[in-house]
C-alpha cells in the first residue's frame, strides 16, 4: 500500500482507500475458506490434488539426486572396518538361519491350525508402490508426499506401509502424487497391541516424529524399553500385525515410541486397500474422521 497521506490527489486517495478494502476483503475471504476447510475437509480435494501434481514430480526428480548423494556417502562408510563387520555379519547370518528354520516350522504349524479352525484369510491387496518424496516441514502436522496418485488407484483413506512397518494413511490424492498422514501426526490414532504379550494399546502421534502409546486398560504400565508395537487390525482400516514403533521411553501411564518405518529413510511405500472396507465405510458415514484438513 502507499504512504499514509497520498496528498491532495483524489485519485491517489481513492486508490489507497480501495487497497484497504481489498486487503480487508482478502482477510474475510481467507477466514471463510479456512472455516470451510476446517469444517468440510474434502471441500478443496481437487485444488489440493492439482497442487500435489505440480510439486510431486519435482520432489520425485530431486529425490533421486539426494538419494544418490547420500548413498555414495553411506556406501563409503561401509568399507570402514570391513573385516570385523564381515565376521559379525557371518555370525548374525548363522543365527538368523536357525531362526528362519524355526519360523518356517511355526508357519507350517500355523497353516495346519488355521485349516482345522477354518479361519477365513483376508488377502492383502497391494494397490500401488511409490516413493516418499517430501513432507510438511514447518507445521505442527506431520504429512508426507507420496509419488503415486489416483492414477495408480490410490484413494483417500487407504493405509500406507513400507517393508519395515506402518507409515500412515492417505488424506489427499492428486493424479500423480498423494499426501500421507504419518503415524507420528497427532490426528492419527492407530489401534495396536504389544507384540510381547498382546496387550491392546492405542498409538497416537506426538507431532514431533514420535508416537505416544497408552494401554487400553488403565492400571499397571505394561511397557518395557525396546517393546515392539504392532497394529491390531481393530477398526478395519489398518491391516493387523504391521509393526508401528519401538518403545524408547516410559512415562507414568504409557510410553513414547519411535516409528519403525522412519519416513526420512524409507525408500518405498506400499499403498494397500483398507483391511475391511465395509467396516471403514460404515464408520465414515457415521462420523467423518477428525483431523483431515
Amino acid at each position: 500500500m502507499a504512504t499514509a497521506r497520498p496528498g491532495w490527489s483524489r485519485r491517489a486517495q481513492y486508490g489507497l482507500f480501495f487497497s484497504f478494502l481489498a486487503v480487508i476483503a482478502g482477510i474475510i475471504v481467507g477466514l471463510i475458506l479456512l472455516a470451510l476447510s476446517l469444517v468440510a475437509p474434502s471441500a478443496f480435494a481437487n485444488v489440493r490434488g492439482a497442487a500435489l501434481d505440480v510439486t510431486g514430480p519435482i520432489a520425485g526428480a530431486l529425490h533421486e539426486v539426494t538419494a544418490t548423494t547420500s548413498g555414495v556417502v553411506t556406501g563409503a562408510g561401509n568399507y570402514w572396518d570391513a573385516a570385523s563387520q564381515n565376521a559379525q555379519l557371518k555370525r548374525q547370518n548363522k543365527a538368523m538361519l536357525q531362526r528362519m528354520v524355526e519360523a518356517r516350522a511355526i508357519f507350517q504349524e500355523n497353516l495346519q491350525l488355521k485349516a482345522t479352525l477354518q479361519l477365513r484369510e483376508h488377502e492383502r491387496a497391494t494397490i500401488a508402490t511409490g516413493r516418499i518424496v517430501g513432507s510438511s516441514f514447518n507445521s505442527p502436522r506431520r504429512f508426507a508426499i507420496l509419488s503415486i496418485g489416483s492414477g495408480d488407484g490410490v484413494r483417500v483413506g487407504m493405509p500406507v506401509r513400507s517393508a519395515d512397518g506402518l507409515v500412515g494413511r492417505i488424506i489427499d490424492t492428486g493424479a500423480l502424487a498423494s499426501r500421507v498422514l504419518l503415524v507420528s501426526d497427532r490426528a492419527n490414532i492407530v489401534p495396536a497391541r504389544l507384540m510381547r504379550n498382546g496387550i491392546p494399546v492405542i498409538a497416537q502421534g506426538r507431532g514431533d516424529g514420535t508416537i505416544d502409546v497408552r494401554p487400553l486398560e488403565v492400571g499397571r504400565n505394561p511397557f518395557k524399553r525396546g517393546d515392539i508395537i504392532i497394529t491390531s487390525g481393530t477398526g478395519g482400516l489398518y491391516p493387523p500385525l504391521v509393526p508401528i514403533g519401538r518403545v524408547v521411553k516410559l512415562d507414568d501411564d504409557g510410553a513414547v515410541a519411535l516409528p519403525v518405518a522412519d519416513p526420512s529413510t524409507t525408500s518405498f511405500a506400499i499403498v494397500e486397500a483398507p483391511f475391511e472396507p465395509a467396516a471403514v465405510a460404515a464408520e465414515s458415514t457415521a462420523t467423518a474422521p477428525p483431523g483431515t484438513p
Partner: protein
Amino acid sequence: MVRAALTPTRRIGQGPSPIAAYVPAATVVGATLLAALPIVSTSGWYPDFGYLVFISWRLLRADPWPAWWAAPLGFVNDLFTGYPIGFSIALWSATMLALDLIDRRTMWRDYWVEWVLGAVLIAIDEWLQWRVAKLLDAAPPFARMVPALVISICLFPVIAWIISRVDARRLGR
C-alpha cells in the same frame, strides 16, 4: 532499511530490470515452492519460508506488490505447504494491514526494530498454526513448537539480507 541510496554507485545506462515489479511476488512463490524439496522432516523444525520472505519484502518496502496480492500469494502457500486452505490467505492479508498501521505509528526504524517486528509476526504465525491444529485435535503441546519458532526468528535476518540483495539487483543498483 535501504542504505544503498546514500552511496550512489549506479553506472550510466543501468536501471531497474523490466520485470522488477514482479520479482518480489516471484521470490515469495519461489520460497513457497521450497516445500517441494525432497526434505522429509520428522520434527517440523523448518521455518515457514514463504512467510519469512513475505514479511522480509514488506518490512523492506511499503509497496513490494499491490496490497491485494497478499491473498493469492497466501493461497499458493496454502496449496503447496499443505496448510488448511485459507490460513495463509487470511494471515498474509492481515499482515499487510497490520504493518500499514504500524508504519503510521513508528517514528523510526532500524535493524533491531525490524527484527523484533519480524519475530513478533513469526510468533503469531506459529501460534496460529498451532491453534488451527488444536481445532482439529492434532496439536502437540505448545512447548514443542518453540524450537521451530527460535530457528525461524534466528533465520529471519539472513532471509531479510538475501531479500535486500535481490531488491538492489532488481532495481539495478
